[in-house]
């Protein structure tokens, strides 16, 4: 493994662990890092053997934001031509479940990266926030939309307008993270969750992730229809037959991902 790389990637059975590697900058998301991250995730997403991906930083910081130095030197046309949103679209369009292992600073673009993931496991030291307004700008990678949808107006406005950070427990209460773990377990717990997901029927998992994501895109009636069609599709899979039969036969299911 090239430890000079901005993104460290490791396969571990049916899961992969992707760690941001700019410790001196607290993993500030430079264009270069985002390019590498999107590239690594795309490769993993294409590998059917990888059933869940953990994204993390270090115990000290998940990611403390965008690269301010880079931003301060950029013109709007620079930002357009950097095609920054494409990297975020790549991450958003993965069909492999993404688990964010968040410890320490998870701010600005770093927080938006965590919110783009499917599951967020926060260590007790995690601090989540969107301090862009301190710099005279706004969250531009989904922060305003995701905080409003997930946490509701009251918390979204407070965090985004005042620049305040949420502790791990506050983030749990606000619905941004689903588990708070001991500081030492920041990565191990995320891997544990990833392995549990990786052991389930991949067809069902991919369709379920898609259906939950869909809930934010359409009215309830349409969402319910979408879910039902996805269920019928899941039923068409060998995994569903295997899963249901295994349950009735009181044995462990052997999923093949078909």
């Amino acid at each position: 493994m090239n430890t000079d790389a901005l993104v460290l990637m490791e396969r571990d059975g049916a899961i992969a662990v992707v760690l941001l590697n700019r410790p001196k900058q607290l993993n500030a998301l430079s264009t270069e890092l985002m390019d590498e991250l999107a590239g690594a995730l795309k490769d993993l997403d294409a590998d059917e053997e990888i059933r869940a991906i953990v994204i993390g930083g270090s115990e000290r910081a998940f990611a403390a934001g965008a690269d301010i130095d880079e931003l301060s030197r950029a013109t709007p046309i620079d930002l357009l031509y950097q095609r920054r949103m494409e990297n975020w679209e790549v991450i958003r369009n993965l069909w492999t479940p993404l688990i964010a292992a968040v410890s320490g600073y998870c701010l600005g673009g770093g927080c938006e990266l965590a919110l783009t993931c499917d599951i967020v496991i926060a260590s007790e030291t995690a601090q989540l926030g969107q301090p862009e307004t301190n710099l005279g700008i706004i969250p531009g990678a989904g922060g305003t939309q995701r905080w409003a949808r997930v946490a509701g107006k009251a918390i979204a406005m407070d965090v985004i307008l005042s620049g305040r950070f949420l502790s791990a427990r506050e983030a749990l209460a606000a619905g941004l993270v689903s588990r708070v773990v001991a500081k030492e377990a920041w990565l191990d717990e995320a891997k544990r969750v990833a392995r549990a997901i990786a052991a389930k029927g991949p067809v069902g998992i991919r369709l379920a992730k898609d259906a939950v994501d869909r809930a934010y895109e359409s009215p309830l009636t349409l969402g319910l229809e979408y879910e039902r069609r996805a269920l019928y599709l899941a039923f068409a899979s060998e995994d569903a037959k295997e899963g249901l039969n295994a349950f009735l036969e009181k044995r462990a299911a052997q999923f093949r991902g078909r």
Partner: protein
Amino acid sequence: MSEVESASPTPPPTQEDEPVLTSRAGAVLTITLNRPDKLNALNADLHKGFAAALREARADDIRAVVITGAGRGFCVGQDLTEFRDAPDDIADRLRTSYHPNILAIRSLEKPVIAAVNGAAAGAGLSLACACDVRIAADSATFVPAFINIGLIPDSGGSFFIHRLLGNARAFEWMASGRRLTAARAHAWGLVNEVVDDDELPSRVAEVAATFATLPTRGVAMTKRLFDGAGSRTLEEQLELEAQMQSAATKTADFREGVAAFLEKRDPSFTGS
């Protein structure tokens, strides 16, 4: 990001002028509040020095911290002349000067011992109670002080003293404002140990040195587990124990502890 303080532009004052002094003895860092003529009353300069000392305490090779006061007193709380001369909003002062230091004591990943050498009053009492262990000199006294000028227990006093004494005693005592002797404080469980005045330095050094030989990571995790135990459910606490125990078994000190036990010898812990 460097943790080292940048050099000041003017010649640095002699150590004795500093409002907070630090000294090392092996893996023990002693932080001494140093305004003895004011019984170590807290002002902005002292808070700054204290913050710097607490940052110094974060170093991995420091495995126990002692906080004590120079001269007759431990710490008698907010300097009221500063209060009178610069009456900015107390809430801002608490948030910017006091709270970070109190929080730093709780988040230090090593045991913090308050060597209460004299009067601990007001925020000085809160400060002593924010530490993990309190060893008091026989003549030390504990004074709520806040209520005597119509104020509430701040700097964590309302939290720590309530936790140490239970609601009944904590409320009655803090609302009364009366002075407690070291003996009474010990009987109440506010203080872990009372020693003769002239034996305090040596006893604290002994206790601190012992702490410094323990598996520091295990001690730090124990500290964190206890800190939240009052507000977690049993299920949450059990889950946290499982996570931390898994991490504890990965430490060098765990391997050393088990090896020493099996080889029937004394362990030698490195704190990692």
